[in-house]
């Protein structure tokens, strides 16, 4: 279970992780154009704690663009994206603290193993000592890649890479998970596993904003489905 913690009190050993903040992420008429090219038609989305919003739509409809805007890494050309009423901007610490995003492959260090990456990320978010080690092991075990702990990223298959990238996002504290097609390159068993993990996160209080092409995952996770129309 992801929510399991080390024995010590979180206040002493690092920040408590997620779920309690109750953030609201909102896109109001958000659209994106570059010159004459329309990447995303104006769209409304609202996400609260313990909710899951799934974005659906054909390739090129602008799902990833909307995720980027709501993760604060891209500014919209119309409409407004807000987190608790404030402009979403990844450069603000409050945005980074609340939102953990997996949109494209995250950067990895070629000289660190999988478990090293998780310890590094967790330490920079304030978890120290044995708790970070245990937490890293827990996350790897949760995603059933604990046997790969001492591999370097270049030694993984594409499906294992995807699970590792998910581990890097899940290991850090957050209130909102923004995931772009997290099911890609995963086999059916691993998709089921990921669905269970995400349901647990939702139950623990996280908000989930996911672009997904898997009907089973969508059915199991979604409270709201937003169909993005092609431009």
């Amino acid at each position, binding site marked *: 279970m992801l929510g399991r913690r080390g024995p010590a009190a979180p206040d002493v050993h690092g920040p408590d992780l997620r779920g309690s903040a109750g953030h609201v992420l909102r896109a109001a008429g958000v659209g994106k154009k570059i010159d004459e090219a329309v990447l995303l038609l104006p769209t409304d989305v609202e996400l609260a704690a313990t909710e899951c919003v799934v974005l659906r739509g054909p390739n090129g409809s602008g799902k990833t663009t909307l995720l980027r805007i709501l*993760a604060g*890494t891209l500014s919209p050309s119309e409409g407004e994206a807000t987190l608790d009423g404030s402009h979403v901007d*990844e*450069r603000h*610490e409050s945005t*980074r*603290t609340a939102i*953990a*995003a*997996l*949109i*494209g*492959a*995250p*950067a990895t*260090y*070629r*000289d*660190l*193993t999988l*478990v*090293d990456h998780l*310890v*590094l*990320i*967790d*330490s*920079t*978010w*304030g*978890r*120290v*000592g*044995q*708790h*970070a*080690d245990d937490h890293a092991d827990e996350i790897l075990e949760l995603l059933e890649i604990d046997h790969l702990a*001492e*591999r*370097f990223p*270049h030694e993984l298959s594409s499906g294992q890479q995807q699970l590792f990238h998910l581990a*890097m*996002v899940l290991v*850090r504290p957050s209130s909102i998970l923004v995931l772009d097609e997290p099911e890609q390159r995963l086999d059916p068993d691993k998709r089921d596993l990921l669905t269970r993990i995400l349901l647990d996160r939702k139950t623990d209080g996280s908000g989930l904003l996911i672009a997904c092409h898997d009907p089973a995952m969508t059915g199991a996770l979604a409270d709201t489905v937003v169909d993005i129309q092609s431009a």
Partner: protein
Amino acid sequence: MTGADKQRLRQVRAAILGDRPDTSRNDTLYPVYVAVIGAGAYGIPAAQQLFRSLDGKWLAAHAWTPVGAIVVVSVAALLLALVPMVGRVHGPVVPPLPYLELVVASPMPRKVTLARNWRLSLGGSIIGGLLVGAVGGGGLAIAKVAPPVALLPATAAGGLFGVLVAELWLQGQMHASPLGLRPESLLPRGRRNALALLDITGLKRQAASNATIGGAVLAGDLRTVRLDAARPATHARHVRLRASGPLVVIARRDLLGLRRAPWSALYGLGFAAAGSAGLMLSLQSPRTPTVAPLVSLIVAYLGFGALCEGLRLHADNSGTSRLLGLAYRDTALAHLVVPMSAWALSALIVNAGLSLAGLVRPAAFVWALGAGALLAGSHLMASFRGLPPIGVFGPRAGVPAMVFWYAKPLLATLVVGTATTAWAARIAAPWVAFSWLLVLTAGVVTWGLVLVDKRDRRS
């Protein structure tokens, strides 16, 4: 190679060429022509000038002694030892990807399909060796370090060196094969059949890398070249990164990275020690030539840079999803802790040794620390400079503009470090020069931080 194989290869080449004329002979001979002209017009005058400036009489007295021979053979052996390493990354037999996919992957014998590429590399190595030998021999003769007859053995030795380079280059490429070099009964025997041991996966990887590196060089993207040429880490995988505070864990990450790249760490520490020693020795006498701190700073820059891999990786990672809980600039500064500490430690040890030998004053260590801060600033600049501006590729700019753009961090180090060190050695109150070193270093560090913030805003 059978006649039928040759005939099939001719048909393949004809199919590839289509209606176009075969210009391969001219394409091969033209670089040779340019190299011969360049060696004659520039190489020999430069070589004789170099031998004269190095004290021709001293060279003439020592070059033909057993010690001189040992030095020459040792240098040649060292260079030859590096050649297989080059072959592992980029071997002598790297045809274009389409040729690999469509011709080399076919059932035709590989010693036939790859022979042309090997002959080109072998010929290039031999001609290059002959030219280097001729330039060296000619320079020695004109500088009167050796009699004119030395030109012949020097040229022959150069040619032999070229043959050895080509063979070791091919050996390096063969050893990089992911299939290994286990003897297979199906493979034909014989030295020439080394080409048959080159596997398609390794060939395609080198060809793809060749295209990537070639494109990156043309685009002035040294970062891509560095990442493509780097060997993946595999050492010390069982050592775990220890969790700690946000800043300390970054430093621990860098230490672990150096542990997993031991040659880089050794090279960095060795060059840092040599560079700091040269800098501290340069301070001791006003008669020290200015070139001494200049060379010392180049060595120190290279050594410090080898210890900065974590900083460069942080810069490489910009633009992707951020997962670390530290601010971008703070992470960059935390990545300087290990190289600065390693520099300070090596300088301290060198200073202790040289002080005990009476060659430098203990206070010279403070100067080395100031130089370390300068190196930290220049490596911030180097790591976060990004890609060259479009203007560098303009018709009026050209290669010198790009070289200057890339060399700015090194130039900043050399100008500030050389000027202040040479000045400090010549004045009675070196603390004045040290104050200027600190002021100018603050400027270089600020420049580096501006580039960090710029990258942060763009990513």
